[in-house]
């Protein structure tokens, strides 16, 4: 407890943890409003989000599969936020990356590993290019990046809908979708019958990569400094404008990669309604994960589990609308944002316990 590093990690985890608990309390209130069994609901939510029915048949595997794109879009938001760009353009970059990957998957034919690499590269380039636009608009002209990325998201969504319904459409079925991508471009899964596979490994590598980049390299340091204080960065000879554009390129690339993995590993094609707000969920997992790659990794899995549990468990078993999952996530963000509320009480509790030990206010400073 007294090791400052342990203390730092605990401090970082405490508020999100309390926020998640508060979110679960709100969930209980909503369930009581619906007059559904309270404890059974919690049990079903967790067993359907994080549990195993029997050996080798784990729903948790599906949670990990769903978490994969979320981890990457979350990382995308982390890179942008840490560099002082409040970009919420992950959704658009993700969609365009997915469309690029889907097109490369059926339009060209290459040997196995090479084809997959080409798809990912294509998606990364498209995502980065789409991230570059708001970056340059911000740096060169001072266009508000939050509003710009919101508009770019709607624009990307409409463009992808158009592409799927017209030029890329495979047949005249009710739900428009593109042709299936070549097997050479598909990502392997670890277990038969599941789609949890190589994509997850890539996401984990990306978590480590983003951490090393932001905290262990010179350009990463420059980006974080530019994000924290533009003036300080300038004083230290850092070109914060360049750092911001670089951040948007990386951020877009990560979101584009998320789209490619979703196409290559899960759907094998792109169809109407491809994005279910994944970009936005990535943003929220970045906020809840304390804008840190490791935090994003944990929170993305937690979110996917909550959504899956609400969808498969609560809706199917208890007839509770699955929107409960999203509502709870929204409340959790609200509670994280209102972190002061907890911090005051935590400080008071610490003071109280320190006084009890006859050791007032020791180590209260951060």
């Amino acid at each position: 407890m007294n090791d400052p590093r342990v203390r730092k990690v605990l401090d970082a985890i405490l508020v999100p943890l309390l926020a998640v608990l508060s979110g679960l309390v709100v969930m209980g209130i909503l369930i009581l409003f619906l007059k559904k069994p309270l404890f059974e609901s919690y049990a079903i939510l967790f067993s359907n989000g994080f549990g195993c029915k029997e050996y080798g048949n784990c729903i948790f595997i599906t949670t990990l599969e769903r978490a994969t794109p979320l981890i990457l879009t979350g990382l995308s938001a982390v890179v942008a936020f840490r560099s002082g760009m409040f970009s919420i353009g992950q959704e658009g970059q993700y969609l365009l990356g997915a469309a690029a990957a889907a097109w490369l998957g059926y339009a060209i034919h290459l040997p196995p590993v090479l084809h997959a690499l080409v798809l990912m590269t294509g998606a990364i380039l498209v995502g980065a290019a789409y991230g570059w636009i708001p970056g340059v608009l911000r740096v060169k002209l001072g266009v508000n990046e939050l509003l710009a990325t919101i508009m770019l998201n709607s624009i990307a969504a409409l463009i992808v809908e158009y592409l799927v319904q017209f030029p890329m459409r495979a047949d005249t079925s009710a739900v428009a979708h593109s042709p299936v991508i070549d097997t050479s471009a598909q990502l392997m899964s670890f277990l038969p019958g599941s789609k949890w596979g190589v994509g997850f490994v890539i996401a984990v590598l990306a978590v480590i990569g983003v951490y090393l980049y932001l905290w262990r390299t010179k350009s990463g340091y420059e980006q974080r400094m530019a994000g924290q204080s533009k003036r300080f960065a300038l004083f230290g000879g850092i070109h914060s404008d360049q750092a911001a554009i670089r951040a948007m390129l990386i951020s877009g690339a990560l979101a584009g990669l998320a789209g490619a993995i979703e196409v290559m590993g899960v759907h094998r094609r792109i169809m109407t309604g491809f994005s279910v707000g994944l970009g936005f969920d990535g943003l929220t997992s970045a906020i809840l994960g304390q804008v840190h790659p490791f935090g994003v990794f944990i929170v993305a899995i937690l979110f996917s589990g909550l959504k899956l549990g609400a969808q498969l468990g609560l809706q199917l078993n208890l007839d509770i609308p699955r929107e409960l999952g999203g509502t709870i996530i929204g409340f959790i963000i609200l509670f994280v944002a209102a972190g002061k509320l907890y911090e005051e009480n935590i400080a008071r509790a610490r003071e109280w316990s320190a006084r009890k030990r006859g050791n007032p206010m020791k180590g209260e400073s951060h």
Partner: protein
Amino acid sequence: MEGFFSVFTVELLNSGIRLATPILLAALGGALCNQAGVLNLALESKMLLGAFVGIVAAYYLGNSYAGLLVAMTAGGLLGLLFAFLYHKYKVDLVILAIAFNLIIVELTVFVMRAQFGNVGSWSDPSIERIPDIHIPVIQDIPFLGPLLSGYNIIVYFSWLVVLVMFVYLYRMRGGRHLRAVGENKSAAETVGINAILLQTLALVISGALAALGGAFLSIGHLKLFTRNMSNGRGWIAIAAAMFGVNHPVGVFLASLFFGFADAFSVRIQNVTDLPPNLVKLLPNVATLLVLILIALRSKIAFSMARRRFRAQLRAEEAAGPGD
């Protein structure tokens, strides 16, 4: 080409004004908050809340006008909650807006499903649309008549708000205080202005206006509620407030611009065979271009101010050695 030009009719202007109304109401609220120095990015969620609460209240109370009032109250209360969290707990307004966006998108569908059992959209035959008002003499004037008459009360109310807000902000003491708070909060506080009260007031009013804009969508324009009904209009309203330099009249013109872009894209779908997805791009692209324009404008204003300052310096230097 004949099909293309047949788009420009009085009906286009008419529907442009209608479609501008929800944006105008939300944008006026946003402008008021900007003037008071509180960034209100949550217009989207307040609008969606208004759309949902408005139609549900209209259903249970059996009166659509009562629905409007309930929607405004709900939006105002959400604004009050924002003000409380912002002032008491120093919650970041951007994150607060994102959180409420998510909560309200999901919670409205949650309640819709739980209460009415519908998934995508909900309506009930007993709900009445807010009726259009035909102004006796004016409606008979050629061209101007159909342009000024035949809207429902929300449209006229939004015009009234433009006027009232102009008078309040630029002709009244309270409005001057509000602008002073937005200009420099601590300076305003030192001369005894209650900044927190004025900012709270701005957030409450803007919540009520945005919610009314939302209610316009659900019971004033159509007669149903659909998932995520506001569909980005709250964000466009923020751009409209910026485009109109937070001045009521400027905001009015900016909102009309977005309303016409919207109406134009709806019309053009009817007369051409362009893919609807591409035509729907129009309002979004227009907004993005406007954002770029706003940035350019402030950049030019900044460099002109700098040039004036330098010229002044030089003039002073030239005159300087004398004294």
